């Protein structure tokens, strides 16, 4: 059983190597990618069932015991996120293959894309599974290294600067991450997350708070919390649609996951947490207002992404079982919905040739299917019942109301307001892009790059992949009951972390 934990990391890495060797044969590359990601999805499902029924699945790499060896752990939270991420990456890969075939024909090879995409998936999986702070850093670097290549692949003059911004900001946050590891190691003498809590608890309160704050800053840059979000709306929208979709769906959520894991497991919950509630409120409001001010479809979606990171932080800052259950539900919902929205944006721009909401119109009449594919995740993002966003939001609002402190109530009110602002923003997209008389696609402003717009053509694979993601988000709403129960059990694990810690530290099934 425990060997399964290594597969989501090992398989894509090996497949990436093979994919690079098979660079001249696009069919092998495509098949390899789809098969590997499907296998990961199945493995993640098995791990999830196992973790839910019999407890965390543990693998000690190289047989080295704690606290020196690296341990991979699949508990409920990790395997749930692993499953959702695998499904989203699979859908995006199919979309991307479909787009490639539609634009350039079946035979053209895109040598670097497939290997790098698989490396990205390996990094994401490792970040979910590892229980070692330094290994988490390595996972982030695998993921980011691949993302640097993906965002700057075949850059043109317009895209090179945003790519540069992304790389420099991410590198800076990585260097802060190393600094944070050095500080934590100096203070505790270990990098094992499960061994850390006892050692951290012995430190003076001031040292504890500053370490916790440092961790929030490091992962906050990754997750785009508001004072640290400036890079995101500048860099994400410039990449090709499938790449933006996978970045928006996964990379920020890995930051949120790292934040949840470290703050619940390692640090003690104290009064300083009110600051996090404030940051959550500011993130929600600034993101939503920023989105409303935009005219560019992709920038608008990027700001909405920032805004909704605030919800996840809100639930974490409440630090109750229902709050964390709400966060887990929200992360699962948001990964699928945000991925779907960016894919739809890719479909829309192919029909309109522009991302400007003022310049486009009439997509609903010309391409009703695209309009339906946009409407469902958009309403879900705004939290309209009966979609998945409503289920996740109501869980968070209940948690906020239940916690009862004035600050929590204020943030709950802010969350409701943000929900309305999100609704306004997506309505603005709907009115701008989908209503009105259909227009001819504008010519591609930058025909040499990988962002192909205005071709007016889509294929079944692209529509199917987007539809698949939308279907998953609908299924989340349909199976909201069992999923909410599962999230609650996962949240319970997070707050009562003895199970996780004994699984990592104990002799167990090494």
């Amino acid at each position, binding site marked *: 059983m425990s060997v399964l934990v290594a597969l989501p990391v090992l398989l894509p890495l090996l497949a990436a190597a093979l994919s690079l060797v098979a660079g001249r044969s696009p069919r092998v590359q495509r098949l390899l990618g789809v098969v590997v990601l499907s296998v990961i999805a199945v493995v993640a499902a098995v791990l999830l069932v196992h973790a839910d029924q019999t407890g965390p699945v543990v693998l000690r790499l190289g047989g080295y015991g704690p606290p*020196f060896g690296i341990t991979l752990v699949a508990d409920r939270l990790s395997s749930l996120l692993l499953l959702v991420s695998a499904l989203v990456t699979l859908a995006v890969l199919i979309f991307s293959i479909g787009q490639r075939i539609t634009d350039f024909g079946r035979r053209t090879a895109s040598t670097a894309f497939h290997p790098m995409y698989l490396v990205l998936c390996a990094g994401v999986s490792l970040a979910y599974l590892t229980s070692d702070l*330094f290994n988490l*850093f*390595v996972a982030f*670097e695998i993921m980011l*290294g691949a993302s*640097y*290549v993906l965002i*700057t692949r075949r*850059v*043109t*003059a317009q895209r*090179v*600067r945003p*790519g*540069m911004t992304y*790389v*420099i900001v991410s*590198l*800076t946050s*990585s*260097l*802060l991450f*190393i*600094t944070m*590891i*050095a*500080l934590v*190691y*100096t203070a505790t*003498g270990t*990098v094992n997350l499960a061994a850390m809590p006892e050692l951290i608890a012995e430190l003076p309160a001031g040292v504890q708070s500053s370490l916790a704050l440092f961790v929030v800053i490091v992962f906050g840059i990754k997750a785009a919390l508001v004072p640290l979000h400036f890079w995101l709306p*500048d860099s994400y929208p410039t990449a090709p649609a499938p790449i933006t979709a996978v970045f928006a769906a996964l990379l920020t959520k890995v930051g949120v996951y790292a934040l949840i894991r470290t703050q619940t497991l390692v640090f003690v919950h104290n009064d300083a947490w009110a600051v996090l509630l404030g940051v959550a409120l500011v993130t929600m409001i600034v993101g939503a207002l920023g989105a409303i001010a935009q005219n560019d479809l992709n920038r608008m979606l990027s700001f909405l992404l920032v805004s909704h990171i605030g919800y996840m932080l809100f639930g974490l800052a409440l630090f109750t079982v229902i709050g964390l259950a709400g966060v887990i539900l929200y992360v699962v919902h948001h990964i699928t919905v945000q991925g779907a929205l960016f894919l739809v944006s890719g479909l829309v721009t192919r029909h309109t040739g522009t991302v400007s909401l003022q310049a486009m119109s009439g997509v609903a009449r010309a391409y009703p299917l695209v309009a339906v594919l946009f409407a469902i995740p958009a309403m879900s993002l705004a939290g309209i019942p009966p979609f998945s966003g409503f289920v996740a939001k109501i869980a968070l609002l209940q948690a906020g109301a239940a916690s009862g402190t004035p600050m929590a109530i204020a943030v709950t009110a802010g969350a409701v307001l943000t929900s309305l602002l999100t609704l306004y923003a997506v309505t603005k997209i709907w009115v701008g892009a989908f209503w009105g008389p259909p227009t001819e696609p504008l010519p591609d402003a930058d025909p040499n790059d990988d962002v192909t717009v205005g071709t007016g053509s889509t294929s079944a694979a692209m529509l199917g992949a987007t539809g698949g993601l939308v279907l998953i988000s609908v299924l989340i709403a349909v199976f909201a009951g069992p999923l909410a129960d599962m999230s609650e059990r996962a949240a319970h694990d997070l707050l009562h972390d003895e199970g996780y810690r004994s699984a990592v530290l104990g002799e167990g099934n090494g």
Partner: protein
Amino acid sequence: MTINITMAVTLAGLYSIGFYLLMQRSLMRVILGIVILGHGANLFLQVAGGPPGEPTFVGTALIEEMVDPLPQALALTAIVITFAMTTFLLALAYRSWALLGHDEVQDDVEDRRIAEAELAEQESEDETPDGERVAGFEAPEAPESRPGEDHEEARIR
């Protein structure tokens, strides 16, 4: 626990120089900033292992006299990673230079648009009372020749 003052001062120096360079406008300086910051971070990881001691080979020294090998292993990994990322960054910077022909960090287009809109609003606000005053008095000077305005526009350009 003793604190190594030399190391602390060196680290503070590296971090300050790194962050200072990171905030410069020239891309090359930004990259140098990343490199120096990387050196600082890796050195910090090394220092986290405690005071210097004997090498960690079994049987060559007493265990109490050996240094902690874990931060060294971590620093080694971190150095390789920062090295690889810096190489990629340099390649990207070269690409950017080849495409754009300069290495200044670009202005924020959105920000400039907002500033322009604000300026246009100010101008229209300034003009209305001026127009009313024209009736009895001499016509005011053309807005272009106002001092301060040129400076504003030059900044926006």
